[in-house]
């Protein structure tokens, strides 16, 4: 009977041999992400920065050069035009206009009117105009949600496991998130409310994955009282590998359609989730587990004799 196995049963990959490589690579990527976060920084969407986005469909293929010329001529700062979907669909982005919140409305109406005369027959399919006070609040709320989510996760894991597990999970989570933020900085994808939703989703997914692997470690700690922690961690990861990869695969498969035809807003969301699933899966194995190995070397295995000479000596 044919059964698809992502890895064969009885796989015994010595993951912990790569613990330094994993941690160093991860730390390097996260530090690079942090640098990118400050310079050049994120491309904040209008949710967080204010400004105007107009999605329009022109009757023929959009003439970008002339449209850019016309709109720049309005004297409303930098106008970014972007083709997406078909060559008739154009996305117009304007910076936040100087003045109060109402200034955005005036500018949006002006672009609408200009589009109607410059390219007759143009259909304005979507208009979003956000003022500074609203965007400031949305940003504060978004960050608040992320911060509280982090705290909630720490408390949850703390409550469920020993503190070594909690610390391992949260450090890993921080490393995961910085990489996602770095991805936003590198690609210049819009960082907006949808991005916050994506990060929250990835956090949930990542913690989820860690809980499954940790659960198995804890179970094995009870069964194999004499196995060195390092071997025990390897065994636990290998035992749960088919599940880890299977779930990642299913989430991947369900998100791919989103990245393929999710439209302007959800395409980015899909792409970031795909990356997030990959990061969360690898970090369970290469980050969360080594951290636990370092933290728990002596404490989680109290009283157990050490048979592995390569390991750090344990205090009896």
């Amino acid at each position: 009977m044919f059964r698809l196995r992502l890895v064969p049963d009885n796989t015994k990959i010595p993951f912990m041999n790569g613990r330094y490589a994993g941690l160093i690579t991860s730390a390097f990527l996260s530090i690079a992400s942090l640098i990118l976060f400050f310079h050049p920084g994120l491309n904040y969407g209008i949710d967080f920065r204010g400004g105007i986005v107009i999605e329009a469909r022109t009757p023929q293929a959009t003439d970008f050069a002339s449209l850019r010329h016309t709109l720049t001529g309005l004297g409303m700062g930098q106008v970014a035009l972007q083709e997406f979907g078909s060559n008739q669909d154009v996305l117009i982005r304007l910076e936040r206009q100087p003045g109060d919140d109402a200034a955005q409305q005036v500018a949006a109406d002006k672009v609408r009117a200009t589009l109607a005369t410059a390219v007759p027959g143009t259909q304005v399919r979507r208009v979003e105009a956000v003022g500074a006070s609203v965007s400031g609040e949305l940003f504060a709320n978004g960050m608040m949600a992320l911060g509280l989510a982090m705290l909630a996760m720490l408390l949850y894991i703390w409550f469920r496991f020993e503190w070594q597990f909690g610390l391992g999970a949260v450090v890993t989570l921080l490393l995961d998130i910085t990489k996602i933020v770095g991805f936003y900085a590198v690609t210049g994808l819009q960082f907006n409310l949808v991005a916050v939703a994506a990060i929250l989703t990835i956090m949930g997914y990542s913690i989820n994955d860690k809980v499954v692997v940790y659960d198995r470690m804890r179970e094995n700690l009870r069964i194999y009282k004499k196995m060195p922690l390092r071997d025990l961690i390897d065994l636990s990861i290998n035992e749960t590998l088919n599940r880890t990869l299977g779930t990642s695969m299913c989430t991947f498969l369900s998100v791919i359609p989103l990245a393929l035809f999710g439209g302007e807003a959800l395409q980015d969301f899909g792409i970031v989730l795909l990356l997030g699933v990959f990061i969360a899966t690898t970090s369970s194995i290469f980050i969360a587990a080594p951290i636990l190995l370092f933290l728990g070397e002596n404490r989680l295995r109290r009283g157990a004799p050490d048979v592995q000479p390569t390991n750090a000596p344990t205090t009896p």
Partner: protein
Amino acid sequence: MLYFSRWKIYMIVATCVAGFIVMLPNFLGRETLASLPSWYANSRVALGLDLRGGSHLLLEVDMATVIRDRVEGLVDGARQQLRTANVGYTAITAGDRAVTVQLRDAAQTDDAVKALRGLSNPVGGVTMAGGQPDIAVSVNGPTVTVALSEVALRDRATQAIEQSIEIVRRRIDETGVNEPTIARQGTDRILVQLPGVEDPDRVKRLLGTTAKMTFRLVDSSADPSTGRAPPGSEILPSSEGGRGQTSYVIRKKVEVDGATLKNATASTNSQSGEWVVNFEFNSAGANRFAEITKANVGRPFAIVLDNKVISAPVIREPITGGRGQISGNFSAASANDLAVLLRAGALPAPLKVIEERTVGPDLGADSIRSGLTAVAVGFVMVCVYMIASYGLFGAFACFALLINIVLTLAALSLLHATLTLPGIAGVLLTLGLAVDANILINERIREETKKGRGVFASMEAGFSRAYSTIVDSNLTTAIKMALLFIFGTGTIKGFAVTITFGILISMFTATVLVRLMMVTWLRQTRPTALPV
């Protein structure tokens, strides 16, 4: 864990069937729905503005104006009170939240304080005593200060926003938008959602007008071109549609307030053929209007809207019927808009649009189509993987996934929750997260089988061991989504809603329902090996 009592089986099946029935109206055509009883036909998911098309506006009440108006009222009141009490003063000045009076004679402070206390309006009057006074009067030598209290400011703000919501509702009702949502947000904001409105220009214009209408006398003693008005008068510009003069000198005293209008309609004048607005006063307004016109025959009378003079016709004869006509170079649209504004009443303070999000109906329809395609493709791909990996048990998981989508839609329909585009993304993501439970269970069963356990023992162990992990993973997701629901706004909330429902429902479909299917299969076929 593998035993199901008969009534439990009935309950499980009944839940699935009920879910199917509840969500069915979402997929029925218009005619079929019309033939169904309305309580059933209404059991549908509400589509967000991003899917059905429409306009979302966030308005802010200009609280500074509200407070300034109150302070100006205090200045007028103070002047009157002091005059009746025969207290001399050299100056009355309006501050940010207070009025300062310089008395001519410091000996009169007691009288002044007594007189000024008379300006107090009780606020927060829940007790018989009528609550606290809204002003505090303090004395410093010959200077008396009347300050608005914090409570008074808050109370005034609440009143202003409630009035504004009422006026906004009336104005929007006049435009004939279907099912608008108008709700207060925070202390000074109003959220307006207008389904089906593609270009909210007219609504924005209507809401952006305060529409404070007053009837006042023209001060003919001064010339507006000098730019200086005598005390008690002010120079006001003419409205854009106005003819003749560009500005007028108008008495500050309001003779008849627009609030006394009962009705207003737009029509064309039978003689000139131009657009006019006909208005009608209530009885108090009509009496007042009759008095004024009787006493001022032959003099110009200004109709002022938001500090602009619409027209200043000369009164030819007393108007006693309480009806009148405004002509001011109107177009059909502007006459209609003015009539709407007058009928709905004036806003207590100007409103500003601080956020607009508008989606055309075409884009909405496109989004629904691509969203449904994405869900279908995602479903098929996950199913292929599950069946390839776990055979029959994988197929059970897929069926459970289908039921999960059905029940999620049913839950959304029952609660009239709003489905948004991010909400569809949530459904999609749930597909991946929900089968996690089945993967966990199946992998466990496999392991137990390999350890040499029997068919029943493996299944028993697989379910019970995987269960705590499943609860864990779903709880963490639910915590995240609760936070997103609290702090997220607009369409993004829809994502949190569908994922939370999907996850909670998966606790039923992926474990209970799948277990029932497996056990039934086990009892009927009595296999010697499991298909995982």
